[in-house]
């Protein structure tokens, strides 16, 4: 086992050096035109290219001795080229590092080296000279210009990016400047102009910006690239037609500006809060309502006019009397219509916690005056505010001094203020369901109609009772007879006939006498019938009022007779 391991180790020991013999590492420095150079301009990016040829496996990025003397801007761009010649495959891996030099001088760069197995493969060492940018009259130039190279934190610096076109060049664009460490306004431009360079008048195109350093120290603004097109110097005649067709015989190139080193000093010591740095002219205070309700929001504005980094100035803290409280609202920069100067407006929402008349004191604004290099203070005007108790809105008055102020109940645009109290959630309308409501409404009507109907019915009955009695007299009599017969109650027969005549002739029972009945029978009955009736009626009287007890047969005869008489009377009457 140990013998076999030893054999493998020996095999690797001999094979790896044999493999690495074919590996080569080379290094070169290229300028912006991709031409090999030994001289580069200060702060202008250049490329260090390391090529590793015949490398088969994956290895780490090559290391370079002396690279730390420069600023590495791009940590490597790798490309691989594979070639097969006569069946022999070779590979070349190219590493490109974008670098710039921050110091002038002569520097040694290299060797670049890689480690394969335990063998380190090295390139040659290069000597690089860093100096000022060489400018020729024909070539385009890019310049980064600042009006100050030493400033105080927050002090304004005007910076221009200037491109001087060369002969037969056209600008494609410029790269975004790296302005880390500054608060910068957006680039404005392009502007055009002319300048004498080496007693030669040259036109330029310029972009401008304003920078405000945010912290002290030395800050470098790296060079900015301009990409332009220029006519090709050498053309391959054979493909001239195609080249003209595809790119018009132009090639794209880039030129780098210088870098800018700016020294930023600290502000002089100050015992207090510094609100801004610049040259400021005025600080004014205003409110939109001079009279407001308790708890109502009033906009309080502080307008700062002058020169400085207005965008970055934060809203100063307010001093307000007890009984008022405030919230920061918004701030914005615009141009004064009167003076044309830039101004920043800070808005606050003031609220009266309790009713009364308050004087909002003058607000102080401390800044460092860049012209005189001293701290100064601006002081705003005082503002009087009346806070009325809730429910006393009607008593609000509009002060004449503030022509713009409106009735505190309304907003600036005249609208009623927004609702703060709700209901913010949809509420179902409280109501009695319409069907139930209609039923409830119809109840008194139904009751009334019922009462009226009942009364009408009673009236109708009362009105028609005699006729009804007359028409129903015999049927009632027959029913009564049937009932009396059933009960074998002879006494009821007399009452039955009295009632019959009473109903038939519309009289009360008390007024029906023998004579009345005879008078009634006068019309249709013969004297014999009258006599018969007299006998029958007397029999009925006896049966009712007499003491004689009738046998059953006699009773039946009387009931039969009564029935016959009812039938006869029905015909007669």
């Amino acid at each position, binding site marked *: 086992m140990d013998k076999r391991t030893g054999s493998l180790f020996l095999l690797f020991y001999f094979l790896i050096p044999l493999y690495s013999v074919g590996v080569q590492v080379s290094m070169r420095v290229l300028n912006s035109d991709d031409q090999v150079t030994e001289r580069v301009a200060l702060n202008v990016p250049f490329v260090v290219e390391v090529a590793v040829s015949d490398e088969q496996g994956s290895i780490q990025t090559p290391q370079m001795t002396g690279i730390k003397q420069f600023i590495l801007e791009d940590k490597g761009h790798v490309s691989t080229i594979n070639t097969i010649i006569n069946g022999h495959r070779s590979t070349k891996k190219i590493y490109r590092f974008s670098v710039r030099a921050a110091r002038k001088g002569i520097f040694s760069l290299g060797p670049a080296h890689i480690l394969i197995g335990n063998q380190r493969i090295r390139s040659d060492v290069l000597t690089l000279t860093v100096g000022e940018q060489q400018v020729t009259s024909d070539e385009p130039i890019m310049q980064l210009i600042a009006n100050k190279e030493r400033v105080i934190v927050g002090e304004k610096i005007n910076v221009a990016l200037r491109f001087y076109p060369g002969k037969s060049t056209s600008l494609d664009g410029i790269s975004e400047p790296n302005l880390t460490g500054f608060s910068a306004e957006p680039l404005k431009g392009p502007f055009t102009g002319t300048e004498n360079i080496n007693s030669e008048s040259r036109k330029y195109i310029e972009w401008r910006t304003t920078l405000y350093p945010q912290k002290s120290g030395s800050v470098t603004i790296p060079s900015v690239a301009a990409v332009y097109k220029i006519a090709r110097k050498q053309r391959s005649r054979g493909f001239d037609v195609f080249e003209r067709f595809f790119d018009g015989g132009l090639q794209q190139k880039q030129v780098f500006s210088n870098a800018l080193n700016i020294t930023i000093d600290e502000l002089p010591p100050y015992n207090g809060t510094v609100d801004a740095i610049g040259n400021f002219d005025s600080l004014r205070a205003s409110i939109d309502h001079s009279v407001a309700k308790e708890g109502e929001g009033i906009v309080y504005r502080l307008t700062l006019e002058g020169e400085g980094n207005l965008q970055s100035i934060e809203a100063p803290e307010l001093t307000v009397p007890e009984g008022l409280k405030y919230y920061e609202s918004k701030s914005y920069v615009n141009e004064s219509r009167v003076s044309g100067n830039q101004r920043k407006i800070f808005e606050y929402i003031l609220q009266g916690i309790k009713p009364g008349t308050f004087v909002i004191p003058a607000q102080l604004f401390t800044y460092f005056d860049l012209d005189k290099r001293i701290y100064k203070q601006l002081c705003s005007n005082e503002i009087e505010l009346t806070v009325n108790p809730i429910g006393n809105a009607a008593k609000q008055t509009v002060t004449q001094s503030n022509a713009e102020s409106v009735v505190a109940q309304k907003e600036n645009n005249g*609208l*009623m203020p927004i*609702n703060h109290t709700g*209901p*913010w*959630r*949809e*509420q179902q309308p409280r*109501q*009695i369901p319409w069907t139930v409501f209609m039923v409830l409404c119809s109840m008194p009507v139904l009751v009334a109609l019922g009462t009226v109907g009942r009364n009408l019915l009673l009236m109708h009955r009362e009105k028609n009772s005699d006729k009804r009695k007359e028409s129903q007299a015999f049927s009632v009599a027959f029913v009564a007879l049937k009932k009396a017969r059933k009960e074998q109650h002879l006494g009821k027969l007399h009452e039955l006939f009295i009632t019959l005549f009473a109903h038939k002739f519309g009289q009360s029972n008390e007024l029906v006498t023998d004579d009345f009945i005879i008078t009634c029978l006068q019309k249709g009955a013969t004297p014999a019938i009258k006599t018969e009736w007299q006998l029958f009626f007397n029999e009925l009287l006896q049966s009712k009022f007499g003491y004689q007890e009738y046998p059953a047969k006699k009773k039946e005869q009387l009931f039969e007779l009564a029935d016959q008489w009812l039938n006869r009377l029905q015909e007669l009457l």
Partner: protein
Amino acid sequence: MKSTFLFLLFFTLHSLVHAQNNQEVFLQANQAYEQNDFKQALQLYDSITYKGAAVWYNMGNCYYALENFVDALVYWRRAQQQFEPKVYHAAEPNIGILADKTGYTQSPSLIDRLKKLSVHGSLLIWQLVFLIIWVLLFILFKFKRRLLLLAANSCAVVLLAILLTVKYNDMTRHYGIINDDASLFIGPGEHFSAQAKLPKMHEVVVGKKVAGWYNVAYADGSGWVPVDKVSLIN
């Protein structure tokens, strides 16, 4: 039993949390409005579920500030349709201001005046008042007390009946705002002849919808307008 209790507890808590969130959004939206960030305020108001009268009203104010006057009118009217007296009366002058600003005028009819009157109480109140007056009328009639009182009561019943009818109609009808100058056609299609012009911001009663057309009615008549010309209030 236990699961029912847990479900009820969950449901109650969920409702409370939901309500709380909506209220927070409402307050945030108000804050955005106060800071003149009307678009943000609108977004926040719009995210509130089951919007109440105050939300619609505030959205109207936002649209007004953004100079979208048609939507401002639509939202204020939508707020009014919630029949919340405070909001109704706040929206009223705003609509007046809008009318002054845009030149839009729609003279109030007797029904509009009754609508305003009806807002003073909820529907329930009006229904109860009507029922009381109605029953009183029958009692007075039954006992034949003072003819003058009976007459006054009868008038009150008639007035309340009209008021309730108006309110009922207002609640059940659909209203819309003409969002752009539109022609009023006699049928649902452009092949029908146009009978009148409806000016922008005119309020109409919206009826049935047929093939992309609304049947609308207004004080001077009725007809058909394309659906995209009408912004619905309710």
